[in-house]
Every structure is written in C-alpha cells, then in structure tokens.
C-alpha cells in the first residue's frame, strides 16, 4: 500500500504575516493552511476545490516547496522535503512541476519558446545542441503544437496554445507529479475542453500524478479521482469523485458548493443550500468549526468544538459534527 503513495503531508501549516516592516509590528496572521493531512496516490488526480482565500493555491506552492511551510512535513516518495539539502531539493524539482493559472504571464516575454522549453533541460540535464533541439521538438509535438512554435515568442500565441506550451515545459524533465493550479480558468470553454483532454491523455501515457486545483467544482468533478474540499485553510471533506457525483457529499459546505454551480439544465438540480453571504476572514477565523457562521445546519457544539476530519467510509472523510448525528439516527 505504502509504495502506492507518491506524496503525503503531515500536519502541514502555513501562516502569513501580512505587512511586517522593520519597525512596525505584525498586524495579524492569515492561516492559509492549517494541519493539512493529505495522501496522494501514484497516477491519480487529486482535485482541490474551494473558494478564493481557502488556501488551495498555497497548498500547491507548499507541496512543491516554492513556499516554505510554517510547520509540518511534505513527504515525497518517502523523503521529507524539509530535511533535504539545497542540492538534493533542486534535484527533486525534476520530479515535481507546476502549470499556472494565467498562461499569458507564464512565459518570459523576451524568451523564444525554444529558450523557455530548453531552460529546465539545460538546468538539470546535459542535453545540448541537436539533442536539446530534438527533445524540445518532441515536447511541442506531445502537446499538439506544430514544431515551428519553437521559434516564436509568447505574444504570438493564444491563451490555449500558451497553456499547451506551459504543459510541455512542465513535462520536459519527465516529472512524476504536476500541480495544475487553475490551468483552465483563464480559458474559454471550448479551449478548456481541449486542455482537459490533453491532460488526461498525457496522464495516461506518462503515468502522471496530478494535483488539480480549481474553484470550479464541475471541472474538478470531471477530471479528478478524489476531491479535497478546502475551507479557510483546512480540508473539510475528502471524497471519491464518483461518490460526490452520486450525491454522497456529507459536509454542508461541499453540498452548498455543489448546489451553487449554475447548471445548463437547472431542472435536474438537486437540493439548493443557501448560505449567508458573510465572507469569511482568514485572519480572524471563527471559533469551533470555521464554517459554522455560514452553515444552515449549525448546532451549538459547532461554535465551540472544532470537528476533526473523520473517516466515514474507505475513501470518504469529513470534518463535521453532523456525522455523529446521522450515525446515531
């Protein structure tokens, strides 16, 4: 079982202290991630969904060690990233890559595509000259772009084309794990479909593991094997995608998110859960369950005790006091 695990986090936390100058004191702590325990299996797609400020983007950055965690561990193939030396960490970068939300700012405007795609290769491998060119040509073909793209510059491409090329760059070092941070949210629907199909094909062919971060539950539902729902820096529900589709989501927040997706066929919509619009403040999270001020099912205990993430079934975890209610009934 354990060799099926590619990456694990243990009590991973990241706090930000906004606006701290030489003489001014800190103004508050934003808990972007708090005690996150996640397991990512080889060749799966773990979807991470949540609203703005829930910490999903920070999670992706911390997993890749682009942002140092405040506490907790990221364990990639049995190695604790925080214990690694700088050089070992740099070597490990080959294994983990990222594709960003905005394809237009993902490339240095002064670099030709060849230079951009060659950069990871020249940094980590001895490929030079004809072999380097050969490899970059292979990369652009793999993402369905013509080879002459290599001689062109970022502003000559559309958003969808740039995202294909960003994926090509992420593939350059044959990584095992790719963080996809809202890879389609800047794209039009028809182009989004092309990118999602491409990602699925590449995953199958290169046996890739994805962390797919998105605010769009319908996209996450479509592409993921399992889905982690985040709220104010915590994972509140972890559920297999088919169970979510079948309406087995347990946490009221997950259900509210589901019911809020605007559907093309509204008549086959399930329940509708209305939440008060009061936006959560990540610097001042509420006591107890951080969702309780917006939860239509909040009970007395919710304001006092924070519910732990508990296992409901094999691949279903939820952090909600209602679990015990429904178990008792």
């Amino acid at each position: 079982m354990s060799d099926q695990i590619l990456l694990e986090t243990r009590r991973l936390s990241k706090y930000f202290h906004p606006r701290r100058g030489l003489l001014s004191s800190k103004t508050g702590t934003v808990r972007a991630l708090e005690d996150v325990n996640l397991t990512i299996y080889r060749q799966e797609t773990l979807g991470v969904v949540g609203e703005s400020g829930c910490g999903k983007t920070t999670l992706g950055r911390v997993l890749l060690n682009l942002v140092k965690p405040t506490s907790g561990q990221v364990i990639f193939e049995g190695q604790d990233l925080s214990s690694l030396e700088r050089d070992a960490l740099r070597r490990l970068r080959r294994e983990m890559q990222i594709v960003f939300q905005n394809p237009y700012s993902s490339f240095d405007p002064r670099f030709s595509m060849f230079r951009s795609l060659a950069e990871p290769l020249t940094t980590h491998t001895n490929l030079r000259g004809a072999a380097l060119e050969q490899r970059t040509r292979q990369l652009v073909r793999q993402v369905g772009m013509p080879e002459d793209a290599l001689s062109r510059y970022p502003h000559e491409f559309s958003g969808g084309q740039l995202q294909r090329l960003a994926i090509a760059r992420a593939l350059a070092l044959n990584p095992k794990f790719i963080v996809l941070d809202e890879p389609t949210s800047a794209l039009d629907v028809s182009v989004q479909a092309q990118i999602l199909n491409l990602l699925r094909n590449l995953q199958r062919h290169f046996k890739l593991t994805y962390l797919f971060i998105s605010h769009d539950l319908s996209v996450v539902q479509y592409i993921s094997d399992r889905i982690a729902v985040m709220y104010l820096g915590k994972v509140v529900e972890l559920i297999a995608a088919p169970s979510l589709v079948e309406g087995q989501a347990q946490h009221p927040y997950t259900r509210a998110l589901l019911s809020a997706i605007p559907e093309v066929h509204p008549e086959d919509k399930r329940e509708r859960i209305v939440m008060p619009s009061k936006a959560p403040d990540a610097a001042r999270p509420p006591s107890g369950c951080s969702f309780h001020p917006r939860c239509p099912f909040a009970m007395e205990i919710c304001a006092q005790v924070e519910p732990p993430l508990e296992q409901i079934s094999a691949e279903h975890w939820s952090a909600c006091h209602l679990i015990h209610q429904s178990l008792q009934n």
Partner: protein
Amino acid sequence: MTELLTVENLHVVFQTYAGTVYAVNGMTFSVQPGEIFGLVGESGCGKSVACLAILRILPGHGRITAGRVLFDGHDLTQAKESEMQAIRGRQIAMIFQDPSTSLNPVFTVGSQIKRIIRHHTQASRQATEQRALELLDEVALPDPPRIMQAYPHELSGGMQQRVMIAMALASGARLLIADEPTTALDVTIQNQILELLVELRRHVGLSILLITHNLGVVAETCDRVGVAYAGQIVEIGPTSEVLHTMKHPYTQGLLAALPSAQQKGRDLLSIPGSVPNGLSVIPGCPFHPRCPHVMEVCRQTPPRLTAVNPGEAQHQVACYLYSPETAQ
C-alpha cells in the same frame, strides 16, 4: 410587445497596431421590457464591445461604423453627447465584472448612493436617506444603516456588486447592462447575485441585458438568449429552447465542451481551433473554418437569422443546415 432596446445590424471596428479589428459585425438583438436577455459567447465574440457601443462609451480607437441602437424608439447612435449623458445612468445603468474598480474608494457607500438619488430626484435630505436604506435593503444587504457608513474596501466582492446594483436602481434606470457581473465572485456568491437579479426583474420590472460566457448562468437567469460568435448572433431564442434544442453547430459545440459528471472518463468534445481574432472578416459564415458540417455555400455567403420552425418565429438560427433552400 414593443422592445425596450433594439440593436440592429451593429458594426464596431477598432484601429490597432496590428490593423483594423472587426469586433462587432452586424449584431442584431432586442431586449423587451421586464426581460432578462442573455448575450453569451467566448472571449472576443464582441459581446462586451456591443454593450459599450450601446452606451457609446467605446475606447478612443473604436467606433460604430454601421447599424442602429434603438432605445425606446430613439436611435442612440445618432444622439447628441448631451442626450447620451442623460441616458447613461438615468435610463441605462451598467455594472462590470470588478465592482471594486467601479466604486469610489474615498466616499462611504451611503454618500455615493445618496448623491445618485439626489441627482435624479429632488428629494429632501430625509427622503433621500430613507430611499437609500430601502435600496440597500432591496438588494438584500444585511444591516443597511451600517453598510451606509462603510467604505467600499470594507465590503466583500459580492456586497460591492450588490451596492453597484443598488446604485443602478437608485438612478431609476429601466435597463441594466450587466457585463459578467459574477465572473470575479465565488460560486456561492455568484448564485446569490443572480438570484437577486431575477428577483429585481420580478419586483421592480427591471430589464436586464446580461453578458456572460457561462451557459449555466444563462440557463438559470435568462428568459431569452443570443449566442454571439465573431461579432454576430448565430442563434437566438427562448433560453430553454436554445439550450435544449440547440441548432447552430457552434452552440452545440459549446454545450458539448462543458465538463460534467456524466462525461467523466470520456474525452470532452471540443471545437477545433480557437476563436477568430477579428483582424479580417471571414467570408461567408464566420464559423465555417471550425464547423464540422461545413458546406460550399457556407464559405461564400453569410447565412441570415431565420426561424427554426416556420410557425415559431422566436427561435432563430443563422445556419444553412436549417434554411429551406439548402437543407436536403
């Protein structure tokens, strides 16, 4: 029924470094009183430009080259600038994707709303205050007296958008043009704003022109919808008909490309290529280079919007697959 707003054969071009961009190429649609009309399409389809053209607030290098915009039977493309100023805000209000840039950061919400009320009615101080509180209540903001005292940055994005809508109501506008009003908001907040728009249509009789790229948003809010592609309307009709019995290959492609739980494990159908950049006018049907059903006639002559069923004039499509002369 007489239309509140009719856009007829509107053409808008922009002069840029790369050349002339043909942004809107003969767009025709109308908004009836008390209706929510959705204008849906992908980026670059001309939907936002068309709205800026309606209010004649195009950026400097853009201009209307042909067509009419009738508001209450009055052609806005011919109106004097002073007449337009009276129409903007007072008759037609507009809200944008990012409400934080539309509100003045140095004044309280209350003073901004009250200024609009006083500008449009000659109400007393007390009546103005009263009306402002009513409006904030009407857009379902909690604790209106407190919101009145708040500065825009103290409110969340969803609340700011509600304030923008309240300000549109304050001006007594009859038509609200909402350009992607929920795109910057989280889904749960988006839902609430859309419900508010539907509610206002019902209670205040507000007509709304809703611009969006999201077909789900259209399905949940709009009475009628026009699908825009390359600066033209390719399909138009009652929302349920357009989304359930879509006729145009582009509309079909858009719907098929939506990821859904039912599609899980299968590839999504995608429209090959990407949206045209507007630097040249595509001869014939603008969709023909990407269309799976392209015929010879499609490359030659642009199709016109015609009723899908002869008896039912509402649902129209611009495609030769459905015109009597070419359909086999």
